């Protein structure tokens, strides 16, 4: 018997999908949508010689029903006509049950009909587990062989081929396949009582071809960890700073991007509320969220079936827009700009970022450092942001003291703290380079793949310390 691909399997369910949407409408929904997802993925980890290999193959549907501001959401793994119709009935029953306690608003939705195929060349589903594990073990081996002070290695790999159909009662029917692959290396080095770590990740919306170019994340992370054993503790005080694309990207995502999410604006927890069209940063600063880039946060359509587009959130210091979905876009009168994402079929879409970064500027890296004295931050380790005030602290992976444009001491445990709305005015130069880091963002209990990045940037007068 000929095996049907998951794509064929889902594509044959159009009648069942339309029946489910009709059921929701007939039972009183003003609007209903469905996401039917089929996914196949592998995750592998190797930690100090131990391996764990997991595979998954899942099928499920999530349905929302809308009634004058009330949403009911239901999901099911029974994706035949009966299962999806029952799911639609539960969604509209919930919307009706909570209708009286909902903020009242109406929504406007544009309809799209499209098929989006992946551009991945080597689909992970067509690569053996042995080959994937081979790549992971190669990274582990190269990290260990890099230096005898490497004390612990953790290499992770995961991929997914996600086929989804998003349809709604307004006529949207989008059939999209997304592929994502990522590998991460976290390497520890030890000398005496001092222990340092290095990290490197590589991931985007390609298939296994991503790892065929000798992506040596293990060795790179090991080199960083070992080199930090000889680094000095960072000084503390007020300094001018240069941020590499990893750290500037985290700033774009954590400190600015989350504040630009429209649900935070509506709930009154964002420092950007009421600041549209206002100048909140220097002329040098432009921040973009662009899901159309084939990076780790890529999506052709968002999880409400809206075609995605590049969004300039901040342009030359002026706040242009927020990230919106159907609900928040309607409530704020901005319309949706395709920023709804859900972790999986079993979670409702919420406003999320995708690939968020500082637009490149005019400077070469050497020009950025010309005459500069301060701290040059490299990479991101961890940190936190207080959304209601915009205060953030980020610890970098490593740093360098810079004197008159020359790199001097290699520094460890360097962190910078600032207020988002203040530091945006203090960015005075951005390089013309652009690079990205893949990552995972958590919000509302949902994890989504994202990219952060941008250019190197120079900032005046920030608080530096160790955490």
């Amino acid at each position, binding site marked *: 018997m000929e095996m049907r691909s998951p794509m064929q399997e889902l594509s044959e369910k159009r009648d069942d999908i339309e029946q489910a949407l009709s059921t929701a409408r007939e039972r009183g929904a003003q609007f209903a949508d469905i996401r039917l997802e089929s996914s196949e993925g592998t995750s592998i980890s190797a930690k100090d010689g131990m391996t764990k290999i997991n*595979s998954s193959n*899942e099928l499920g549907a999530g349905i929302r029903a809308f009634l004058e501001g009330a949403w*009911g959401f*239901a*999901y*099911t793994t029974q994706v035949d006509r009966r299962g999806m119709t029952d*799911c639609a009935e*539960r969604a509209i029953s*919930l919307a009706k049950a*909570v209708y009286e306690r909902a903020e009242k608003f109406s929504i406007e939705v544009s309809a799209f009909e499209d098929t989006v195929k992946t551009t991945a060349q080597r689909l992970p589903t067509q690569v053996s587990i042995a080959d994937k594990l081979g790549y992971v073990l190669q990274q582990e081996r190269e990290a260990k062989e890099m230096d005898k002070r490497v004390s612990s290695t953790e290499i992770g790999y995961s991929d997914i081929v996600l086929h989804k159909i998003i349809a709604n009662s307004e006529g949207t029917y989008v059939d999209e396949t997304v592929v994502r692959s990522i590998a991460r290396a976290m390497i520890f080095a030890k000398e005496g009582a001092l222990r340092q770590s290095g990290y490197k990740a590589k991931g985007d919306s390609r298939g296994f071809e991503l790892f065929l170019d000798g992506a040596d994340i293990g060795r790179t992370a090991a080199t960083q960890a070992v080199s930090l054993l000889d680094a000095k503790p960072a000084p503390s005080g007020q300094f001018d700073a240069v941020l590499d694309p990893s750290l500037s990207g985290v700033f774009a995502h954590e400190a600015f991007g989350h504040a630009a999410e429209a649900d935070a604006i509506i709930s009154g927890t964002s420092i950007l509320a009421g600041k549209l069209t206002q100048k909140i940063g220097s002329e040098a600063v432009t921040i973009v969220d662009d899901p159309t880039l084939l990076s780790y946060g890529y999506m052709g359509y968002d999880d409400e079936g809206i075609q995605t587009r590049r969004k300039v959130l901040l342009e030359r210091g002026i706040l242009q827009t927020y990230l919106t979905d159907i609900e928040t876009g309607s409530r704020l009168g901005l319309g949706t700009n395709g920023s709804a994402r859900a972790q999986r079929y079993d979670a409702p879409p919420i406003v999320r970022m995708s690939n968020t970064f500082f637009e490149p500027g005019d400077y070469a890296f050497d020009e950025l450092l010309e005459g500069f004295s301060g701290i040059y931050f490299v990479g991101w380790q961890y940190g936190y942001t207080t959304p209601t005030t915009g205060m953030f602290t980020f610890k970098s992976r490593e740093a360098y003291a810079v004197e008159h444009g020359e790199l001097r001491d290699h520094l460890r445990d360097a962190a910078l703290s600032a207020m988002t709305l203040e530091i945006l005015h203090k960015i005075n130069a951005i390089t013309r380079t652009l690079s990205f880091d893949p990552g995972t963002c958590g919000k509302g209990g949902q994890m989504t793949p994202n990219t952060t990045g941008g250019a190197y940037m120079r900032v005046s007068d920030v608080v530096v310390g160790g955490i």
Partner: protein
Amino acid sequence: MTHTEREATLLEICTRALALVDTSIYQGEAFATHSNSVSAELEKGKIKSSQSGFESGIGIRIFKDGSMGYAHASLERVEFAVKQAISASRAGRPDKDFKSLPPAERYPIVSGTWDNTIASLDVSTVAQLAIDVADASRIDKRIEIVNSGASVGRWSDAIANTFGVSGTDSGTQAARGKTAETASSTRHRGVSISMLIRLEVRPERWRCVV
């Protein structure tokens, strides 16, 4: 389908999955589950989310010479899960501490985990319970209900392995909770009370007092 029928179905799926395993080479374990859930959450008296889930799936662990491969899949894709877990067990490194999957033994039966009343609550009733939780605290104007919610679920599981372990389990759960705050005259929040009540009583007795 009753929960006992559901258990039997899940166990049959586990058994069918393990029949695909060559026990002269591999040890295998299958765990199948099915669950229904409903939850609703209010924030400051307004609905924040209402959700209902119906899901099932199977997880397969295969061991070859101490190397474990795992795969999980929808119940329609059991064969895939077994094949992938076998491939993973062949590729991975052995865990030197692994001895064996457990042999069949008598396991204690835990009773009283299933409540038909909870199991039969529909989505509208659960949503109304969440609203009732919020309203039940309106005994004093100084109390502001920040969050309140209710959730109800039922599940059935089955587990089997290639050494004859074979068991099923079902249960119901229900919870409701709230966070209430009082405000002082300077509008600073003075007291925060969170309550999570695991329900072991009949819904008609669910009353909440702050």
